[in-house]
Structures are given as C-alpha cells and as structure tokens.
C-alpha cells in the first residue's frame, strides 16, 4: 500500500510527542527510526521511478559499474550460452559467494579462441552488480584461466566492451516469436 505524504507527516508529529520515551527505549527508538526511514524511502520511490524509467528493450552490452570492480578467484561450475549472438555466462563458485559471470558474445570469444571448461579454476576481474531480483553478477573485464595461464581482456578500464564498435551500441536482436 503506498504511503502518502500526509500519513508520513502525521507519523512524524506523533513520534515527536513521544520524545522522552523514544530515547529511553533503544529498541522502540531504532524501530521508529527504521519505520521513518522506510516511509521516507517509500515516499521518494515514485519520484525515483519516474526519473529512472523502465528496464525494457532488446539487450545491449551488460552494464558495468567501475565503482564496484573486484577480483574473484573461483571454480567454473557451469557454462551457458543460449543464443549464437547472446552473451556467454559462467557460474562461478568463489570462496564465499556464487556468481553469475557475464563474459561477452559467443562470436567474440570464439574469435579470441577462448576455451573454458567446467571445473577450471579462474581469476576474474569485473564489476559486481545485482539484477532487479537481487541475483549477484560479475560483469567480467578480464578472465585468467589457471591451468593454461591464458588471460583474456574483455573490457577496457572504463568498462567499455572491446567487441563493441560505435555503430554496434544500439543493441542486438530479441527473442523470436
């Protein structure tokens, strides 16, 4: 149920009235703070949504946030590539976390002669991102395969994909009907 501006302000007024007990009871106080913060968040949500728009359209290159770049070592547990032109992804079991690693389009990896198998130990540098369902992804900038020592560069320092020319930025095809 959406929280209206009126109901939030009413809640703030009533919490002010309980000033003293508010600080004497830490549990209650933190709860109120949390509710107020949540209410403010809810209030600002429609505005955010309006500013952000929608997640929609034929897929383009994966997003990449240079602020969240990290290095992860782990074992490949699965390799998936659904379409000829779609991205190749890996399931990576790292020490503490399971990642879905987005590499790059199949044709590009083929061009580079890239080969990885289930069970291979790999070292990946990439941007840690969450999708809208909260699933953890690692958008790879480079990948090194332990057993061969091979290292493949997929993105530059800013995260721009090395397979993408200027004209190809518009996107790729979506699913057949």
């Amino acid at each position, binding site marked *: 149920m959406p929280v209206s501006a009126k109901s939030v302000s009413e809640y703030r007024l009533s919490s002010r009235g309980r000033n003293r007990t508010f600080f004497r009871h830490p549990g209650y106080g933190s709860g109120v703070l949390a509710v107020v913060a949540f209410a403010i968040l809810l209030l600002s949500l429609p505005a955010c949504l309006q500013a952000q728009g929608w*997640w929609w359209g034929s897929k383009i290159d994966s997003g990449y946030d240079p602020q969240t770049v990290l290095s992860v070592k782990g074992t490949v547990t699965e390799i998936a590539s659904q379409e000829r*032109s779609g991205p190749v992804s890996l399931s990576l079991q790292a020490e503490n976390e399971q990642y*879905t690693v987005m590499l790059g389009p199949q044709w590009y990896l083929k061009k580079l002669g890239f080969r990885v198998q289930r069970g291979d130990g790999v070292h990946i540098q990439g941007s840690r991102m969450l999708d809208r369902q909260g699933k953890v992804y690692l958008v790879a900038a480079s990948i090194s395969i332990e057993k061969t020592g091979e290292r493949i560069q997929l993105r530059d320092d800013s995260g721009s994909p090395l397979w993408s020319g200027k*004209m190809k930025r518009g996107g*790729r095809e979506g699913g057949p009907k």
Partner: protein
Amino acid sequence: MRGRESRLGLLGLSILLCGLFVGCASLINLDGSMKAMNRKIESLEKRLAVMESRQTKRGIALSKARDAVVFVWGAYTFVDSGGHPLRQVLNESGRPIADPQGVPLVDIKGTGPVVYTNYCGTAFLAGPDGLLLSNRHVAQPWWEEKKDEALIRAGLKPAFLILRAFFQEKGEGVPVEAVSYDEKYDIATLRTVNWKPETRPLTMFPESETIREAQAILLVGFPTGLDAVLAKLDESDHAQDDDEPCSYATAEELSTRGLLNPTTTSGFLWEAYPHVLVYDARTVGGGSGGPLLDMSGRVLGVNAAYLEAFQGGNFGIPIAIGQSLFEGRGVPVIESKGESLKLQRLACADDRFSSEAGGICSSRQRERSK
C-alpha cells in the same frame, strides 16, 4: 487272357483319365491362382502408384508451401502522446545504463539512442495482393507481452520502427502492415506495402470438410529465427563478418543469396477442436505464424504456441478462424498503420535515431561480402 488284358487296359485307361482330370484340375487351379496373383500385383501397383503420386504431390505441396512462407522481422518501441520514443538513459560518462544481463534502462526523457525490441516470426501468403496470415502476437508483438505491460499501463503506445517480410522471390525485406486480428484468438492478417508477390497463396482447407484427427501433418516456418537457417548452411555460405549473426543484416544477406529457407517438421494431428489444434510436429519460438498443412498442402491451421517442457503437444489456431478474418469479421488495425507511418517519418527526420536504431539503417551501412 483276354479278360485279364481288358481289365488291365481298363485300369490303364482309368489311370490315364484320372491323370488327365487331375492335370486339368491343377491347370484350372493354377490359372485361378495366377489370375488372383495378377489381381494382387495390379492392386499393389495401383497402391504404389498412388503412394508415389502422393509422395510427388507432397513434394510439390512442400515446395509451394516453402515459397509462400515468409520470415517476419520487426522492431518496435513505445511513444508518448507527443510521438516521442523511448530512449536509453545514459550515465555521467555518456554510456547507456543497463542491468548485468544487458536490459537497458529507458525513458521518454532519456538522452541516448532510441530503444526498441527486435523480434522475428513466420507468416504465409493466404490471399491475393500480398495478404498474409500469422499470429496476432507476430503482427502485434506487444499483445499479451508481460514485459510491455508496464509501458502500456503508463499510457505509452507501441509503434513499429520496422516490420518486414522476406519472400523467397525477393531478396530484400518487404514492408508489411497489420490489417486485422481476431479479438479472442491468436491470429491476424497482414499485407505487403507497395509490392505484390507473384507467388500463389496457399490453399485453405475447405470449411465444408472436417479436419480429421490422427492425420499426418507438416509444419513450415522459422523456428529459432535465423539459428536453424544458419545451422543448415555450408561453412562457406556463412557471412565473413560473422558478428551478430542473427541481425536484420544477416536476414537480408541470406535472403538476397536465396538461403533464407524455412524449416519443415512433420507429425500427426492428435486433437482437433473448433478453437485449437493439437499436434506433435516440433516447433519452437520463431515458428509462430507458420502454416500447419495436411499432406496435400492445404492449410489446416496457424502454428501458435508450444509448451516448453513438453514437445509432444503444440498448438495451432484452426484455419476456419483465419477465414473469418478474410471475410471481414476481424478487428481492423487502424492505429498501428498511423503509428508506423509516423515512425517512418521520425526515422528519416532524426539522424541519431537512424544511425543507432540497428535495424534497417545500420544494416544498410554495413554491407557484407556476397
């Protein structure tokens, strides 16, 4: 002595007569067997001829069907009441914001390139002057499409950037437009724009006849889109520039080289209801809108849906529902035509849109070796 001789003579005569009788009887019987055998051979020959003729007819029917089946390629976006299309939202570095799977963040106020959804499907010539039959979800891809619901709820309107059909008789894609659709069932008609094919339309199954269950059927279309087409090609037929193999440019190149051929699967029609046909001929996404044919090449229905986890029962819309569209009983598409014209103008007016849209414009710029 004489009496003994005459008895022996009589015995001999009797044996001779018996022999003659048995011989004649055998001959008569043999003649009968021969005649019966000849009749059987004749009957077998006739049946073989019928089978051979059916085989030939099936081959001809299949060849005709292939000629009349078209690959449909479309890209659509959403526009606001002022005709402004959705654009990518860019970050501070001017790069489009996308989620880890590559789904872009879009908005009418976005400052990036126009955003669209590409899709492909199948249709077939079903009437004169380029009249095509397909699914409604091919003619209007936003129909019952979950990912489009939020945009429609927000008051945006869908609009085609490009909707083209690739015919066997013509290299480049032909512009098509939706004409009408059935309000309840997943079936629609389209028509070619400014061009009329010479290929004869497929024959519809007569309304006077009843569609029989357990009959053999053929399904023609483009399941998987271009993937199945590319998989059939010799390595040397693949485009040299093999990046983005499933793009509009690839479809156009394959069509120009006469390599954009539909896939045929066969099976049996197991259930026939007035509203749906159930069959086991294999299909998958991209095969939507393909004709379901009997062995004489007559259209029984339009391929519409499949269950992902079970390939044993796929679903089609009976052709009788399609015929009702030909008789003008469908809902006419008025809005879409206007929108597509508006978008055509937009495409020409907005250079950024033209160069980034990835559909016709960029593919024209990226000519490939033939």
